[in-house]
């Protein structure tokens, strides 16, 4: 699974992109976030306030209940501020 982090999430986690082997017992984005928070302090800080975070699965907006599986591209980022 390819993971992407943007804006201040990228800065707190320290990388913009990484590839992981998704644990077999993780079935949705919420489970993925819980697992990521256990990977280090940067992740823990980045994912502290889930209300402040948006996510996309395969480049479409999704929510924490969205199913995720090996091979997906999952991105986490704050609300967008373009234009």
């Amino acid at each position, binding site marked *: 699974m390819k993971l992407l982090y*943007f804006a201040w999430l990228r800065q707190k986690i320290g990388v913009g992109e990484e590839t992981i082997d998704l644990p077999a017992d993780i079935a949705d984005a919420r489970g993925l976030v819980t697992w990521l928070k256990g990977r280090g302090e940067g992740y823990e800080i980045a994912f502290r306030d889930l209300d402040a975070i948006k996510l*996309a699965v395969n*480049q479409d*907006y999704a929510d924490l209940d969205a199913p995720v599986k090996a091979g997906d591209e999952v*991105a986490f980022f*704050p609300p967008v*501020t*373009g234009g």
Partner: protein
Amino acid sequence: MAIRVQREDFDVGAELAALGAGNHRIGGICSFVGLVRDMNEGAGASEGVSAMTLEHYPGMTEKQLAAIDAEAHRRWPLEASLVVHRHGRLEPGDRIVLVATASPHREAAFEACHFLIDWLKTKAPFWKVEESAEGAARWVEARESDDAAAARWAAVDGKEG
């Protein structure tokens, strides 16, 4: 019907001329150009901005912009449309984004252009980080007024925004 995400500046006159070239059904072209201001009001008290950097999500950005553009064509009788959005480091006065719509009717051109920039603001994955004159960097926060502007277009026809 055209989407571009690029670091380089764009030539508004050339883009608008190309948009309508040779199509004599077009009665009006509406455009919006967003510029970098030297003041930020997003975080309450205004403070000077000396530059900003626009980060984006390559791939998803184009996908979302294309979806927004397709929605505009579903809703209004457009002969042509264009969205050009820059990324990278920009200074006050620099162009950020161009949205343009061409239609036989001016109401459709205005509404579709307004719709495109409103939806782009809340759906296209760009993030701004501003530098103050003192060198501090600050991620711009999303504004409720942008959410409200985008939601207005959802209410118009009952579709989810």
